[in-house]
């Protein structure tokens, strides 16, 4: 096997890397999911569900999303404190902390949004 040449990667290689990195974000999300999904569940159960039942939950979505986003730094901080060495595998896949957490927040936001829509449909 010849020595790898470092230069401009081809498209198939980049696609493989992209897929691997998406899977890595999913894997990392699983490690913080208990916190993040717990917070989502709490917000949905204590704020959205009563609001929908009382009929004033229609305009709540932006506020709920913002509240959910505001909890991400807390999860990040706890995660850094509890598992400081958790990033090495992801660094070896070419993922920085910023990309990893960006992916986690995006994925968690989508799941939260899905939960809101499901709850709205359920109550309606």
């Amino acid at each position, binding site marked *: 096997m*010849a*020595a*790898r040449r470092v*230069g401009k990667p081809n498209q198939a*290689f980049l696609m493989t890397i992209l897929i691997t990195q998406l899977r890595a974000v999913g894997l990392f999300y699983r490690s913080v999911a208990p916190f993040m999904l717990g917070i989502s569940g709490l917000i949905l159960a204590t704020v959205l569900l009563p609001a929908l039942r009382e009929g004033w939950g229609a305009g709540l979505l932006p506020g709920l999303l913002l509240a959910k986003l505001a909890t991400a730094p807390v999860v990040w901080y706890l995660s850094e404190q509890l598992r400081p060495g958790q990033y090495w*595998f992801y660094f*070896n896949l070419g993922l*920085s902390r910023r990309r990893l957490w960006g992916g986690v927040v995006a994925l968690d936001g989508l799941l939260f949004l899905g939960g809101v829509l499901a709850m709205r449909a359920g109550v309606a």
Partner: protein
Amino acid sequence: MRAAAGSPAGPQVLEADGIQVAFAGRQVLANIYLRVQTGQIVGLLGRNGSGKSVLLQTIFGARTVADASVRVNGRRVVPAFRQAGLLNYLPQEPLLPPSLPLRQAARMLGVELTEATARFPELRPQFDCRAGELSGGTARLLQTLLLLHADTAFSLFDEPFSGVMPVHVETLAEEMQRIKQRKGLLITDHRHAEVLPLCDVVYLLHQGRLLKLEGDVKEALRDYGYLAQ
């Protein structure tokens, strides 16, 4: 093996310099210059707390150090780990998430697990385990093998032999010798009896400075107080 178009011929050279790190007013690293090229195993020795891990992490790009310059064939690559296929790094602490199945870890790193462990047949029954289920020595060996066989130009290993049983250390050393034909390896480990015969170049981190040892390396290590007289 992917060969990128337009890349220069000959060995690839990884260089790091301008790295200065201080902790609590104590200068740990100063005016470092380190060079590794493909086809070489480079040893990095030094006393506990001399900054070996900090240096490896800085080269890898996980630790941000102002003015640090890491280059491959003269081209700046900071942080280096973001450059696809350039280098990987084995930290002192566990590499893999404990819940990650070994096969999945290998797949994500682009490594054929059977091929990577071909010289360690006793590891095969562990293939279906999760990383957290492995014993310390087995986990260390498997993590080292995964990174060694990953398709990168360079591998940085922080104590790869730590906890690995002697018979496996010998085979792992032979694997490193074999793989260096296509890679550059930078190794730091206190098991100098195993590391020194492997190395083409030896550096010693001494009082914050990186010294390239030439001639009688063991004698120099004794002179600097790394080995007993």
